[in-house]
């Protein structure tokens, strides 16, 4: 049986975060999540994924990283080459959906929120409950690291913060997906709701 609906994600962490959120929100399993092992591979193989036999709907989840405009432009150009002349100039804040006759329906979500630069961990950070003391303490701790001793690049600050925070939970070191299932994170946070709404629209599900 051909895969009719697929969600492409950058890596294992994305895959597990999505699986936990989908389970929590009881989204029916009508699509397959495919881990593309990195954003470069995802982009370089995208034209072939779109032409998969029998494909009807394809979701694409990538990190905006440091330059959201550049990331969007590279998706924009690739999708035009794949027969979508109607890719909007800027991403839709609620998650982009593109339909074109004779082509699979496309959905694009730029982590964290289709507007800010950043990555999966920024999105997961949104799911920390308001006023969480440890979340603030994690930030304070990171700031206390002398510049010369900091081993991670500045761009991974949020990663360090999320993993620091995860280290201080009931069961330290749970991966992000499991931490959602264990309700350390709030899967009902508004950003999570928005993501689920986008998925429902893309895969034509009634919530």
């Amino acid at each position, binding site marked *: 049986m*051909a*895969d009719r609906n697929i969600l492409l994600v950058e890596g294992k962490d994305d895959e597990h975060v999505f699986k936990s959120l989908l389970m929590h929100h009881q989204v029916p399993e009508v699509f397959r999540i495919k881990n*593309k092992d990195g954003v470069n591979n995802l982009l*370089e*193989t995208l*034209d*072939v*994924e779109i*032409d*998969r*036999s*029998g494909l009807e709907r394809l979701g694409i989840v990538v990190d905006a990283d440091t330059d959201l405009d550049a990331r969007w432009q590279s998706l924009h150009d690739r999708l035009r080459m794949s027969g979508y002349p109607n890719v909007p100039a800027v991403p839709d804040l609620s998650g982009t959906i593109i339909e074109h006759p*004779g082509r699979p329906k496309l959905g694009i979500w730029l982590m964290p929120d289709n507007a800010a630069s950043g990555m999966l961990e920024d999105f997961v950070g949104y799911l920390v409950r308001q006023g969480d003391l440890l979340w603030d303490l994690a930030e304070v701790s990171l700031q206390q690291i002398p510049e010369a001793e900091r081993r991670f690049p500045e761009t991974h600050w949020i990663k360090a913060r999320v993993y620091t925070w995860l280290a201080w939970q009931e069961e330290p070191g749970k991966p992000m997906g499991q931490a959602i299932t264990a309700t350390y994170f709030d899967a009902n946070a508004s950003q999570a709701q928005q993501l689920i709404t986008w998925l429902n629209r893309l895969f034509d599900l009634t919530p």
Partner: protein
Amino acid sequence: MTSLILDSLEIHNFRTFHHLQIERLGRVNLIVGKNNVGKTSLLEALWLYAKQGSPEVIRYILEKRNEIKRTAADERRQIQPQFSDIRHLFYGREAVEMRSGASAHIVAGHTGLLSITVDWFVRQAARSQSGYKLVPYQESSNITSEKMLGLEINTESQRKDRFLVEDIFNPSRTHLLEAEDAYPAIFVPASGITRTEVEAFWDGIALTDREKDVIEALQIIAPAVERLNLIGLHDSQGSRIPAVKLKHYDGPVNLSSLGEGMNRMFTIALALVNAGAGMLLIDEIENGLHYTVQPDMWRLIFAVAHRLNVQVFAATHSWDCIAAFQQAANEHAEEGMLIRLENRDGDSVTTLFDERRMGIAAREDIEVR
């Protein structure tokens, strides 16, 4: 890379196709798709183009699908049955009306063109030679002449040929109808080729180096094959059948006794080496071939097609066959093209996979069929 006969293709109004476009073709092309999407029709269009609208090819492709229903001589002369049969060439078949006529066009590259139009003609006596020429009924001044159904064939060389449908359908006349300037092109149907063709193809390469290619093809399945020849059956027609010499057996062994796969491999290789500087068209190429021998078969096809400048078009719906093709294509830069044919809401749509895209599909486990 030597230039290809066809680097792109467009078909209008021919059989299954209202409109079909293939923007890029390779040297070795594998056409894949579900049943009834027009894989065979595509091969037929290519063959007809290569043979520049040959009446023999037209009769063959209609007969092969049992679309010429009237065989008795008196029925063959009647217009209505002729029309019912000939319209199978055109898109829409049953919807094609007798009074309106229909045209099919096959456009190859920037300059290649073949168009076939069914129309009404009258015979006009030719002054210089024996026989007659056909004039369109509309242009004819002599309206008492019998109105007859015919095909007008136009080609890129601006040659204009007209044939009566009753002549096209008459096997004893078809071969007299002329078709010129054609590319060499061999069509291998799913069921294989006739004994007569086998004999003619063998005679075309006997005692040349191309024999080696055919033997090498057989060795993919049976490494013990050392030599190959056609030997007499001593029947009334004097037919000859293929036989091989095996390593540890001193005497001829009928090829057919070595299994269905051997016959298929022999047919494909023999047709390939006879299609030099032309086209080879193979329907359901994997027929009878075990999946384990298919990668080597494709390797051989790629190598020989390159050397003899053959452009190959094969059709399949077998997953194993596609996988084998992908393997071999990845070893031959810029030669292979996988062409998926599908029907989307009544439109024929093609999706192309060159080596880069085939490689990605294989690596990322993406279904291309």
